[in-house]
């Protein structure tokens, strides 16, 4: 009874944003990526019925999908931006099966596209042409958890939220958290070096992933799956698979360090006058909250109000030009409470915080986080959204939003910015009634040139994927790109792993 009521209340609160996303995403099919972005198919083999027979002999009937309607969801990304033309989806259950499949594909020069939860934002997780989709959804076993060291070992297809629930019951949490947690896979998180909401506190995946098992293009299994915090033995190969978006190898297992479950959690949501004050508040939060600060997020007026309106979510406070969300993770309620009260009293008096609310009640915190996490999906309602994920030095963090507003004028419905201030990472969304080449050409490469001028990165946490290879040079020097190309050549000489992604054709 208790449970049913709780889920009822949740339903009324419309917490399940991803359900909404799926609904919106299903309304219309996006244009084929190859046509939309004028891409030419590379000289890969084409899948034949003998290939399908072979895959069925390895995986059985049920784990090879070839019906058009079965394959369609794997061809489209959730922001309705990209659509591939894959004819087959393979669902391996073990590293050995992945290895067997890749060995065969490599010999036949059949291109593959690895796919986790398909929540990527740069088209990296869907095929462009007829690449065979390798879905990790059935590789979802938890292998081991050492509750003393906090090392969790699991297969790549485990859903992040399931892992978090699992380790929470054992007094730990996952070191990363992001809006897509209910859908995304840990293998995808590793392959894209996903950032998220608590990177500020728990660091990025290059630090928290202790080990990786991956399969190279030729089927060789690379075993770097140690759960050690310190392991300086030779080249740190695991890092090659973290953030390389499935172009150097397919991640099949990860060992990841889970921090201790905080006993005391507080969440504040504040209204702030201008961006300058957001930065001042960040400085103050860092010094006054110190080691308990676990997230410092900001969203501008349009981010919050557009989201609240489109997804019918409650905004806990009234209208302000900027909103800031501050979360603390600590081990002692009274200690954290005192610190927080001092911070809040000071900054209310100083005027940095105009108004706001603060809570330690899980349900209320969930509602506030839900509003913040839903911003990413809000732009999809009734239109198309251009999404940019960039790192910019803090003093220029918000500069691009007003610049883009001016540049686009009434061609955009909304231009809004939100993101992880603590990490210097801003998400800029431009919503339009529908995708047009005109708006696209006004945004790109303009936005990347601007980011480059500000010494920022054109991809902070979303990756390069399919959408940004031609812009990678704005953030990476020729020397670095040259070495990347050599690595790719060494590890995947036929280029079958996630082609058309990450590296541009001509370096």
């Amino acid at each position: 009874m208790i449970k049913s009521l709780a889920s009822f209340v949740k339903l009324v609160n419309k917490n399940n944003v991803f359900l909404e996303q799926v609904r919106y995403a299903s309304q219309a099919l996006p244009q084929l990526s190859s046509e939309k972005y004028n891409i030419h198919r590379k000289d890969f083999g084409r899948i034949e019925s003998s290939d399908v027979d072979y895959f069925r002999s390895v995986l059985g009937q049920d784990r090879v999908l070839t019906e058009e309607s079965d394959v369609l969801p794997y061809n489209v990304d959730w922001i309705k931006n990209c659509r591939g033309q894959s004819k087959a989806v393979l669902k391996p259950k073990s590293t050995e099966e992945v290895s067997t499949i890749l060995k065969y594909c490599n010999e036949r020069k059949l291109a593959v596209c690895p796919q986790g939860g398909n929540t990527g934002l740069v088209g990296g997780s869907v095929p462009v042409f007829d690449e065979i989709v390798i879905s990790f959804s059935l590789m979802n076993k938890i292998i081991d958890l050492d509750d003393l060291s906090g090392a969790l070992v699991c297969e790549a297809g485990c859903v992040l939220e399931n892992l978090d629930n699992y380790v929470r019951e054992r007094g730990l949490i996952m070191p990363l958290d992001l809006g897509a947690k209910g859908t995304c896979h840990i293998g995808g998180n590793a392959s894209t070096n996903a950032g998220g909401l608590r990177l500020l506190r728990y660091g990025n995946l290059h630090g928290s992933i202790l080990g990786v098992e991956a399969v190279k293009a030729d089927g060789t299994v690379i075993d770097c799956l140690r759960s050690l915090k310190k392991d300086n033995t030779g080249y740190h190969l695991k890092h090659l698979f973290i953030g390389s978006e499935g172009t150097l190898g397919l991640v099949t297992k990860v060992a990841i360090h889970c921090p201790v479950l905080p006993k005391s959690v507080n969440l504040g949501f504040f209204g702030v006058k201008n961006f300058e004050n957001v930065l001042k508040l960040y400085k103050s939060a860092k010094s006054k909250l110190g080691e308990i600060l676990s997230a410092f997020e900001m969203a501008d007026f349009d981010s919050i109000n557009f989201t609240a309106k489109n997804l019918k979510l409650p905004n806990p406070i009234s209208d302000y030009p900027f909103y800031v969300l501050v979360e603390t993770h600590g081990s002692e309620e009274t200690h954290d409470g005192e610190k927080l009260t001092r911070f809040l009293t000071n900054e209310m008096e100083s005027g940095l915080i105009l108004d706001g609310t603060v809570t330690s009640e899980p349900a209320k915190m969930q509602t506030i986080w839900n509003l913040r996490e839903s911003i990413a999906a809000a732009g999809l309602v009734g239109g198309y959204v251009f999404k940019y994920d960039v790192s910019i030095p803090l003093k220029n963090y918000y500069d691009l939003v007003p610049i883009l507003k001016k540049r686009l004028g009434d061609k955009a419905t909304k231009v809004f910015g939100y993101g992880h201030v603590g990490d210097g990472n801003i998400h800029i969304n431009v919503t339009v009634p529908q995708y047009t080449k005109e708006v696209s050409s006004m945004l790109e490469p303009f936005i990347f040139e601007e980011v480059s001028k500000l010494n920022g990165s054109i991809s902070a946490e979303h990756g390069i994927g399919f959408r940004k290879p031609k812009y990678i040079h704005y953030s990476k020097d020729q020397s670095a790109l040259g070495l990347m190309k050599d690595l790719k050549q060494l590890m995947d000489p036929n280029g079958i792993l996630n082609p058309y992604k990450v590296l541009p054709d001509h370096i």
Partner: protein
Amino acid sequence: MSRVLVGVKRVIDYAVKIRVKPDKTGVVTDGVKHSMNPFDEIAVEEAVRMKEKKIASEVIAVSCGPAQAQETLRTALAMGADRAIHVEVAGAEYETLQPLHVAKILAKLSKDEKADIVIVGKQAIDDDSNQTAQMTAALLDWPQATFASKVEKSGDGLTVTREIDGGLEVIKTKLPAVVSADLRLNEPRYATLPNIMKAKKKPLKKVSVKDLGVDIAPRIKVLSVEDPPVRQAGSIVPDVDTLVAKLKEGGHV
């Protein structure tokens, strides 16, 4: 103008996963995050709105429970209640505290405080009793307007829209009266920072059950608390024929 007494209960937060104690005497509450019963939040919100609309002159929040119930009362104060009464009930006594006891306490306080309206949530999400409002009304011999989804002032009384099976029922009631809040009555506000600060200084009175002269001896005994049965895993069938065959096999068609 009316004085409103609003009952608030501290319950396990609805976002927390409930665990049954190994000895099956109840659920684990130690070290578990609690918050105000969501339906009581709706009740507080309605009372505060009545005050904002000048229907009510004063809002008094009441909670029965251990010392931590004061946190729940502070939340009510931060939402806009004027003062709070904490009826201390702790330990074993609290474990056997029932709606009848709470109703007696609320009835006594309503008289003492000369309240005109008592508002409570329609039920608490921990024991789902849905009895306190009705029993309080009976003990006071006041009219009751339960499952309210809309409350309006009309003349000397209230016009209340009630959520009933199959639709809505509109009733008129004189004052004093007891109202219980349903889910759609309103959307409770978030306590704002200035109000959270102010709430720390608002009056909170502690009273004991003995002072109120209410007998809270247990009337019922909990024999066993069990987890709901685990749902059996589903299975995927290859085609419609197999599905129909399976349904027939299970006697569903």
